[in-house]
């Protein structure tokens, strides 16, 4: 047995009538030179009682009665004050908040005992990590290292409280530009993937890349220092990039170039286009419609379309049969219904729906494919996330950084809804999904209109933990995010904060010293609040093992958009290396881009053995265009309405 050296007391609890010890707070002094600092964990031992505390404030003062006495002593010369033969007696006086008392009952004021620097074991005890670190089914997930007093002790979160079902969600705040928020989440995801308890099943992450190249290089190794690697070792997290990362990005308006910054030739092949058709979009039509557009009539008509028309054979009552599967089909359906109404001279309602309502819905739905071009296709099949086949420990990055806000809303709403649906049915492929959303100030602001995205975020925050749908969210100003979104986050993480933000009421519980520390936190250090920790803890985490977005752009710069023919050829060559680009170019010469896009989308979806042959088949034969026939216009018998549609 290795004999442990007796711990040496570094301080002593003192209590006065004005500053007494209480069951939740105590004061102690240390030598001037001590390893104690704000955030340090200390242990007070007196008899059978052991109290763990975290230092929340510090004071230093001397026996100087008034500053004037120093002036007099130095005869008004500051330089002489420093030359006095004797240094005044001074004190380092600390305030600590109680983390835990053993025994826990009866809860008593902290005894006036000796104070010791916490050991590894003390840290685990103080933060109540022993309950989930050493249980039969451990659920500990390292979030970083507690570093104080020369100690480096891993700090663990409880998976039951981070990823459900007891509590869930993580929210991280901090000023922008310090590479803390995203880095912390990247590290934590790596930690979750390594330590997610086996008895809880499989886990995956869906990350929305909402700005720049932040999450575009999660599969590429970053530059780690030896110190970082040592910390990874201490935390038992592999210092390697994510093994399974799947990228999804909408296409640009041209329908062939990807709308992402991950377009370097070495990496672009891993990016799957994200394109949705009518079927995928119509369920989320509310996302795309203005608040003014949504009324009971429009809602009813959309429901009618959804229930009776889309994806099934439908007779419109004018002798036309419809099979609506795409926006093109939908447009044809509307045209024929309107024509039918006009030709038949019937009233201004069709199947109880007023024609003005129908025209409004048609207008809005038809515009979707224009407004979200590249994401929503007028025609052709969709390309989507692998719902039902999510892989364990895989990251699915959906890059919507360059998509307009409407498209971002649509992507977010649909992706989260699908995740929820599949998790409810337990057929997603994994048991828990971490959804990472940055910029909550934009997507879930405390004030502003009730958007669909905000509603979705609230829904995840409030109900997600029962399903295994966990929200990791980040923002710059926590005080300006919807209270229920941040309030439902069981774990809250703070990077360097702005002093103005710290002055808001949400931070009143923090001591002035803690606030100052938060305002000056170095990169790589965080303050963590977790249900098991009775006080916020400061931890250090290593640099994430992946290439940072900015560095990635340096190493893998984005390429400029390819001409249409080249982009199509590249996509087909990527699917079948035997194809020569010129074959593709010959094939698509003189063909409309719409036809080419539709054929390409079909190939992407089918993934046939012979890519070129299937592409040719989907493209169909060349048909000479006829001169357009003159269309006979029948004037309406009665004016339908005054509606401008």
């Amino acid at each position, binding site marked *: 047995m290795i004999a442990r050296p007796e711990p040496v007391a570094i301080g002593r609890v003192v209590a006065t009538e004005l500053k007494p010890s209480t069951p939740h707070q105590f004061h102690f002094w240390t030598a001037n030179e001590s390893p104690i600092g704000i955030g340090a964990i200390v242990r007070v031992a007196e008899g059978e009682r052991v109290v763990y505390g975290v230092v929340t404030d510090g004071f230093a003062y001397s026996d100087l009665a008034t500053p004037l006495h120093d002036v007099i002593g130095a005869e008004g010369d500051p330089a002489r004050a420093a030359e006095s033969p004797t*240094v005044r007696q001074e004190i380092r006086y600390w305030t600590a908040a109680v983390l835990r008392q053993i025994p826990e009952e009866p809860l008593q004021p902290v005894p006036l005992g000796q104070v010791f620097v916490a050991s590894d074991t003390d840290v685990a005890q103080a933060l109540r990590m022993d309950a989930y670190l050493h249980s039969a089914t451990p659920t500990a997930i390292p979030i970083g290292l507690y570093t104080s007093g020369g100690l480096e002790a891993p700090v663990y979160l409880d998976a039951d409280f981070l990823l459900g079902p007891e509590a869930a969600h993580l929210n991280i705040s901090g000023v922008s530009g310090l590479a803390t928020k995203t880095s912390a989440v990247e590290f934590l995801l790596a930690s979750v993937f390594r330590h997610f308890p086996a008895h809880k099943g499989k886990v995956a992450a869906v990350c929305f890349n909402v700005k720049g190249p932040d999450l575009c290089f999660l599969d590429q190794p970053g530059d780690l220092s030896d110190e970082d690697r040592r910390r990874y070792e201490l935390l038992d997290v592999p210092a390697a990039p994510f093994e399974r990362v799947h990228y999804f990005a909408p296409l640009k308006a041209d329908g062939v170039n990807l709308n992402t910054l991950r377009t370097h030739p070495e990496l672009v092949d891993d990016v799957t286009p994200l394109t949705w058709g009518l079927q995928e979009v119509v369920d989320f039509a509310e996302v795309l419609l203005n608040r003014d557009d949504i009324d009971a009539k429009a809602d009813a008509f959309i429901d009618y379309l959804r229930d009776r028309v889309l994806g099934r054979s439908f007779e419109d009552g004018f002798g036309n049969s419809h099979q609506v599967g795409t926006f093109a089909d939908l447009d044809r359906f509307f045209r024929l219904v309107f024509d039918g109404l006009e030709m038949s001279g019937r009233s201004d309602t069709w199947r109880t729906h007023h024609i003005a309502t129908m025209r409004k819905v048609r207008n809005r739905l038809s515009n979707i494919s224009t407004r979200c071009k590249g994401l929503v296709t007028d025609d052709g099949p969709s390309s989507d996330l692998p719902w039902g086949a999510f892989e364990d420990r895989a990251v699915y990055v959906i890059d919507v950084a360059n998509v307009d806000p409407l498209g971002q809303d649509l992507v977010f709403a649909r992706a989260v809804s699908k995740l929820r649906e599949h998790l409810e049915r337990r057929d997603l492929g994994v048991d828990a999904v971490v959804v990472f959303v940055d910029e909550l100030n934009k997507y879930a602001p405390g004030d502003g209109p009730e958007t669909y995205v905000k509603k979705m975020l609230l829904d995840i925050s409030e109900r997600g933990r029962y399903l295994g749908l966990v929200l990791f969210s980040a923002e710059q100003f926590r005080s300006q995010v919807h209270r229920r979104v941040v309030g439902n986050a069981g774990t809250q993480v703070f990077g360097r904060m702005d002093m103005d933000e710290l002055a808001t009421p949400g931070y009143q519980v923090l001591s002035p010293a803690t606030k100052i520390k938060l305002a000056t936190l170095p990169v790589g250090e965080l303050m963590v609040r977790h249900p098991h920790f009775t006080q916020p803890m400061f931890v250090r985490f290593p640099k994430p093992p992946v290439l940072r977005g900015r560095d990635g752009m340096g190493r893998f710069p984005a390429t400029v958009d390819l001409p249409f023919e080249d982009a199509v050829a590249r996509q087909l060559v990527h699917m079948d290396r035997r194809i020569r680009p010129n074959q593709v170019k010959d094939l698509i010469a003189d063909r409309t881009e719409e036809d080419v896009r539709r054929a390409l989308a079909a190939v992407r979806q089918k993934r046939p053995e012979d890519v070129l042959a299937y592409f040719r088949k989907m493209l169909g034969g060349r048909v000479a265009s006829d001169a357009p026939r003159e269309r006979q216009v029948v004037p309406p018998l009665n004016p339908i309405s005054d509606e401008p549609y």
Partner: protein
Amino acid sequence: MTWWDALVRAGAVPAAYVPPASMGRTDADDGAEPGADLVEGDAVAVHAIAPTLSPPACFLDGIEQWKVVGYDGVLPVVRAYVAAAVRRRGPDRRLRTAFESSREFAIAPLAGLAPERRRALEEHCADVVEITTEQGTQPGRLLELARRAVDSARAALERDLAERCLAGLGQKEWLVVDGLLSVSGKLAGHPRALGVIKSHGAQFFSGADLERALTVPADHRTSVFRARGGHARNEVYSWYLRLWPWEGNDLLYGLVRIEARADAATIAAATATSGWLLAERAPLATPDTRWDRLLYPIHDVETYLKARAPRDFAVSRVSRLPRTGT
């Protein structure tokens, strides 16, 4: 059970009287009539001093506390505590304790106590100092004798510590004692021992010399003289040094008397020695009311000793009205 509890059980009347002069020491020179022989110049002169760098030094001070804890008839029984410490100033200019000693004891007119009270005291208190009295001595006189006994115990403790410190003093290190140097032969004879006296009960000059000595301006010292009488049991040289301007305050404001070895070297070094003592004005020894004469390191030793002294000697702040028993 404390010895004073035992004494009360044996029939003594409990008391909690803290005499006004019991919480500190006195430097009153109440010995033989003091006198001075000038050893520097023919008349008392004043010499300008400039502050200089202080040498390595140790500082010695002592405290005494006592209170009456019981009466056997009108005979007071006193509980006393004396302590002394030497604090060494390190290269970091901080003071750390090098030597310390304390003593807690009882003082009683044993011969006058009733047998059972005397037995109780002797059985329960290992350290009893007897004050001898004549039949019918007034309690006030007994308290004065007790004060002297405490004073003597404190002085003995200081002397002992000083001599232990001198034995280990560094080659260039000084020992600065709060009070008289002449109480100890070893101290008085050491080339790097200084006594700093703040109270001026004993006046060594008269007439114009006295006026010149007591009106010495700030940053000046007087001529060195041989001190005679007072507490001076061993020959020492002495001089006055004014630390702060007295004008607008009091004649003795900022005035200290220095004692050093009776040697020609002391005269030669008096100005230099005064220079570094002058530098010890800073930091101020506030909030002590004697800060104008109290060197901060001495104040520090005193604070240290008081912090370690028993807390129950202090004057109780609670009302001394009779208890109602409710």
